[in-house]
């Protein structure tokens, strides 16, 4: 038997219902259009600082999102807008945080990399590479401590996968059998350093092996494959069997952040991915094959455009935070 696990493809996955496919298409398109607009607003100077776009990786977060239920927690790095939208946070609140306005989730005090929603169980938005892995393990610890069957989904890039605290977390999660899904979003580049130059481990899906962590390598550009793998991981975690590791082979079309000219890779590589592996186009092709009419896509596009336009309008008209906000939320008043 071949020792190297190959990425699971659509052929392995269960079919999704037309309704689920429509939902997935709509969610992926929302993330894409939202991010394109965020890029544009950044270009206009309305979004400051660092801004890391999720474009290209949509199938990962949407495919996992299809399997989340009320109470499941999620946490990620600074490439976080997609996770927030899928967690159910409003495009208005997220976009207004990007523009640093009072209507943003952190009332303008967090920005692109630091956004949270207690209500939607989204725990950030973390600007320190790898920190969310230990924190996310703590979210799973809390699930177990409270005796729920809720799962924590912990996203991190292949760049973070070389961090020490990731393995400290794997050890703790395996020791305590914590309901934690570690999702490595392997988009091949940690800023400008390719995976080949940063990781001596060539198959990240096996990085949990010493701790006996169950894992799958998944075609992260294929929503069907992501959905199927996420379903398996969720069932495993909810059954109390311990953590699960998913390596998502994905790709980001844009630079690491808005100010990254991405000279470390060939343009042809990006174009090839966009042309042949685009997660939204891949799903659309499958939906067309299943007989879903072209008008459905037009309607979804129109809806999504309206949502993003509304969020953009809100993000520009919401006032900047009151100056008194400078001194609030430093400590909880006992």
């Amino acid at each position, binding site marked *: 038997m071949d020792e190297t696990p190959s990425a699971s493809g659509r052929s392995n996955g269960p079919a999704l219902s037309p309704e689920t496919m429509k939902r997935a298409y709509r969610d992926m398109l929302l993330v*894409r259009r939202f991010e*394109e607009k965020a*890029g*544009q607003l*950044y*270009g*206009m*100077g*309305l979004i*400051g600082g660092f801004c890391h776009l999720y474009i290209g990786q949509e199938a990962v977060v949407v495919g996992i999102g299809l399997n989340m239920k009320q109470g499941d*927690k999620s*946490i990620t790095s600074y490439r976080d807008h997609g996770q927030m939208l899928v967690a159910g946070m409003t495009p208005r609140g997220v976009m207004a945080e990007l523009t640093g306005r009072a209507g*943003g*989730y*952190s*009332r*303008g*005090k*967090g920005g692109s990399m*630091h956004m*949270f*929603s*207690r209500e939607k169980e989204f*725990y*950030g938005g*973390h*600007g320190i590479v790898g*920190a969310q*892995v*230990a*924190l*996310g*393990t*703590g*979210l799973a*610890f*809390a699930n177990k*401590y409270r005796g729920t069957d809720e799962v924590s989904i912990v996203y991190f890039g292949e760049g973070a996968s070389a961090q020490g*605290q990731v393995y*400290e*977390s794997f*050890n*703790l999660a395996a*020791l305590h059998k914590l309901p934690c899904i570690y999702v490595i979003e392997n988009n091949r580049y940690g800023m400008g350093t390719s995976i080949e130059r940063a990781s001596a481990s060539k198959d990240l899906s096996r990085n949990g092996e010493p701790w006996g962590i169950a894992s799958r390598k998944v075609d992260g550009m294929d929503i069907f494959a992501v959905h199927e793998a996420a379903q398996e991981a969720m069932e495993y975690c909810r059954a109390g069997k311990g953590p699960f590791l998913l390596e998502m082979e994905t790709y980001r*079309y844009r630079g690491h952040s*808005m*100010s990254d*000219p991405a000279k470390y890779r060939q343009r042809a590589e990006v174009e090839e991915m*966009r042309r042949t592996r685009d997660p939204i186009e891949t799903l659309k092709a499958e939906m067309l094959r299943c007989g879903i009419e072209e008008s459905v896509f037009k309607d979804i596009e129109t809806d999504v455009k309206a949502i993003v336009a509304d969020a953009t309008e809100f993000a*520009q008209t919401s006032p900047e935070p009151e*100056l*008194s906000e*400078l*001194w*609030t*939320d*430093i*400590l*909880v008043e*006992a």
Partner: protein
Amino acid sequence: MASLILMPALSPTMTEGTLARWVKKAGDAVSAGDVIAEIETDKATMEVEAVDEGVIGKTLVDEGAQNIAVNTPIAVLLAEGEDASAADNVTRSADPAAGASVAIETPADPGIVEAPEVAQAENDRDWGETSEITVRQALRDAMAAELRRDEDVFLIGEEVAQYQGAYKVSQGLLDEFGEKRVIDTPITEHGFTGMAVGAALTGLKPIVEFMTMNFSLQAVDHIINSAAKTLYMSGGQMGCPIVFRGPNGAAARVGAQHSQCFASWFAHIPGLKVVAPWSAADAKGLLRAAIRDPNPVIVLENEILYGQKFPCPVDEDFILPIGRAKIEREGTDVTLVAFSIMVGVALEAAAILAEEGISAEVINLRSIRPLDTETIVRSVKKTNRIVSVEEGWPVAGIGAEICTVAVEQAFDWLDAPPARVCGLDLPMPYAANLEKLALPKPEWVVDAVRKQLRD
């Protein structure tokens, strides 16, 4: 409707750039994500991508044009079915950047962090009957009481459970509360601290024991970036009710890596509270308050004090407010301000000074952040002199903060420059004779006071 494509800013600092090349020309259809042009900044060449689909009506800037300011229109994008003539009619409806600038008006700076308004009565309340217990017992009793009181509280750290605590502070807790709530960890501070902070963000109330505070450096990112800042970064949504505790400072003959005071390190951080108990009563009252506090609190203990006995109130409800100092000895000639084990040193110095007819007031800070500046300033206004006493290093230490408070808030009352007694500015030596030289002694304090009175 036709719309304008603007010169984008592609970094936090870019204000203008060169339009190096048009990838798309007038008449070309584009869809979202297509590269339409390349621009050069002082740092790099970047691609401009279309955000909407449509047809390029016309370009407004020539290839090679330099110093194009950010937000200058560079092309007109026609919507589906629109005639090219629409490109001539499009105008900027509003300056999109207009909303980005506001008049800067700085709100009043509340200045250095002072103790919250806690009724002095609460701090000075007479708790009645006391019994002599060690600081170690006081800490254990505090944890046991809070573990009994609140199911969300748990203790986690190296050797806290089966081993009964590396310094026996958690003795008996595993037996009473079980392994769900008294949790041994591998020797991986970065990981288990991050895990505890994550649990706290959901509302659980972990007590993280560091075998010594020296090891907290392995986890310092989670203490500062994850625990202290999340409340602010989340706009008040996500607090972090957690306690980080363990022995701090020099013990005896354990060398440089195990002998360091972290008071100044952690007191620097907005979003943290820092307490440093001296007596058994301090230890019990402050640790209980720390566990109940909805914020991250650092409890700086001291290994040498663990075995020392002090009278401690037996009242089941005994607790102390965070942010209030205690005057351990009243005096009129000089104020000695100390915390943790140095309170004992200051009291010994006061006894020596008394023999010389000098009356020293000794303040036990109890809390480093927030700092009880009110008590310090009131005392300085009475004694007109101040000497800070700490085991930590002098540079940017707690003594520097205390002396600054005196200068800023009681300058006209001072009869001598404030003085600092600190540990020597060097890594702790191992040799017994050298180690002895490195740490403050009562005589150093006495000398500092004599100098103030002489000058």
